[in-house]
């Protein structure tokens, strides 16, 4: 109790010094948490991947499609329970800057395999009943102010032409980490149009999503699927949804690694700042430590006194920084919009922020505490006055 009182009052002694250090700490922890949130957002698709889903794609490259007939064949593979398929549509909405994922999906099966996209049953029925219907995520609806029944025009690039879809459904995510910025329309509508304009591109799926009965079998099922199409004109590569998603983000690994490094550099810098503050503080108070020792206080007490102050400063800054992360992340999320759709501060980030905060506090106290415990009483007392 008395120790805590001493720690608190000591912290308030050099008010400017403490306040500046706390602010520095707050900014560092804010930066740390924000950068981690960016990395999390980057990997959000990977984190949201289901362990019982596999993705089958063309072995040569994702840009080459596979015959739609594969669906029935994949369904025959033991361990497979459901299959759906999709094509990346691309296209432009209004202008190039309005980015959100647009996909043609197997209307009859897609939402069955992706229970994390929650669509009200009547809207799903409406989607099934209209060939040019589409379903969009809640965030997109909010962003563009769409309403059910609105016509949404897209200009095709991969699939040239002017396309019009009618909004029939709005999905929301089952959890915070579900991307609510995607846009789905019916694969059969796309295929029908292709039959007229470029028949050789019709009857093709960009990738298949395969639901398996048991995640443990993912390896065996993947091999069985790929074996089916061995030596065909479109050989396949099947992997877990997670591996598939990782394949996308891996291209930008270098950026992510740089962000991670920067976040730790920030921590390193603030560690040095706090360590320096504590060293100055402890140097100012050596004679007080000598007096405490004279009275019989031991090294443990001195360590707790110094570490307590250091951790108090670190925690004030850390809590402030973490507190500021939420509004800042909200602003980021708004500005980034659909670019990084899942942008929220995760528990792990806060936990790491707290751990880093306490760690910095503790580390900064080590050197001054060590010096304080080694101070020779008689020697230190001679320098008073």
């Amino acid at each position, binding site marked *: 109790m008395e120790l805590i009182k001493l720690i608190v009052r000591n912290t308030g002694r050099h008010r400017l010094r403490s306040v500046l250090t706390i602010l520095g700490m707050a900014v560092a922890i804010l930066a740390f948490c924000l950068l981690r949130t960016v990395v999390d957002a980057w990997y959000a698709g990977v984190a949201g991947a289901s362990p019982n889903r596999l993705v089958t794609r063309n072995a040569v490259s994702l840009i080459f499609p596979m015959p739609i007939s594969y669906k029935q064949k994949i369904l025959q593979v033991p361990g497979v329970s459901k299959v759906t398929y999709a094509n990346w549509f691309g296209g432009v909405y209004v202008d190039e800057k309005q980015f959100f994922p647009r996909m043609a999906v197997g209307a009859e099966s897609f939402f069955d395999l992706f229970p994390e996209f929650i669509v009200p049953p009547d809207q799903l029925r409406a989607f099934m009943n209209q060939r040019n219907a589409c379903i969009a995520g809640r965030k997109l609806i909010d962003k563009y102010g769409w309403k059910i029944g609105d016509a949404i025009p897209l200009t095709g690039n991969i699939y040239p032409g002017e396309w019009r879809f009618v909004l029939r459904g709005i999905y929301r995510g089952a959890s915070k980490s579900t991307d609510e910025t995607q846009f789905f329309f019916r694969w059969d509508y796309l295929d029908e149009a292709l039959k007229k304009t470029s028949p050789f591109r019709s009857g093709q799926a960009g990738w298949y999503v395969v639901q398996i009965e048991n995640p443990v079998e993912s390896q065996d099922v993947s091999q069985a699927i790929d074996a089916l199409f061995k030596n065909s004109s479109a050989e396949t590569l099947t992997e877990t949804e997670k591996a598939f998603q990782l394949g996308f983000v891996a291209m930008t690994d270098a950026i992510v690694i740089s962000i991670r490094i920067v976040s730790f550099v920030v921590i390193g810098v603030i560690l040095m700042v706090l360590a320096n503050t504590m060293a100055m503080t402890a140097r100012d108070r050596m004679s007080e430590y000598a007096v405490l020792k004279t009275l019989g206080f031991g090294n443990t007490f001195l360590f707790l006194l110094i570490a307590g102050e250091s951790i108090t400063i670190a925690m004030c800054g850390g809590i402030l920084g973490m507190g500021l992360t939420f509004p800042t992340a909200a602003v980021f999320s708004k500005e980034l919009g659909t670019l990084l759709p899942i942008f929220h501060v995760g528990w792990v980030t806060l936990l790491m922020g707290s751990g880093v905060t306490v760690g910095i506090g503790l580390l900064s106290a080590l050197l001054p505490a060590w010096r304080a415990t080694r101070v020779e009483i*008689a020697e230190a007392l001679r320098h008073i006055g």
Partner: protein
Amino acid sequence: MTEARSLPEEPIVVVDRVSKSYRRGAQVVDVLREINLLIDRGSFVALMGPSGSGKSTLLNLIAGIDRPDAGRLIISGTDITQLGESNLAQWRTHHIGFIFQFYNLLPVLTGLENVELPLLLTGLSRKIRREHAMVALELVGLPHRVHHYPKELSGGEQQRVAIARAIVTDPTLIVADEPTGDLDKASATEVLTLMDQLNREFGKTIIMVTHDPHAAEKAGIIRHLDKGVLNSDWA
């Protein structure tokens, strides 16, 4: 020395052939050379001598905040040169009250809290600690300023708080290193009167380093330290 031995009670302080030297670069300074000193329970001893003669060094050795190179220091029956670091710290808590020239109060604690500080090491309850601290502050005549911080007190008042801190644990021995060295004449007189009162009314044994002859007058015994050697004379 012979006078001391003739008293019936064992002396409370026995300094037995104590030597201490400091190394300053390549040079070794012999501060104390085989010092012998006996102090009886209940006496008020002034240690005098020119600056740099080793007064503080001797006082620090007796108080257990420095260690001799050779010799024994037996305080109230305990040979403190045999104590390990943490035992020595514990021993100081219970046996020594310190009064410094520059008071050395903790600036973040009020007068009362400063006096209470040494009691934190005794395991007394908070209530009892407060009571003891109040008694000590009343004794030094400062019951009305207990909630003031050191910087709000005059030098004399700070030194009286420091005296209260020194006596609150009811120590065996009070050591004071130039307790009036930083005070004006009036405050110095107050502090000396207080120490005299502690000695006379409460039977406290006090060793005071001073180079002020006025201060020394209050003490019953004056010892002169010069060039590492003690000379005795009676006040």
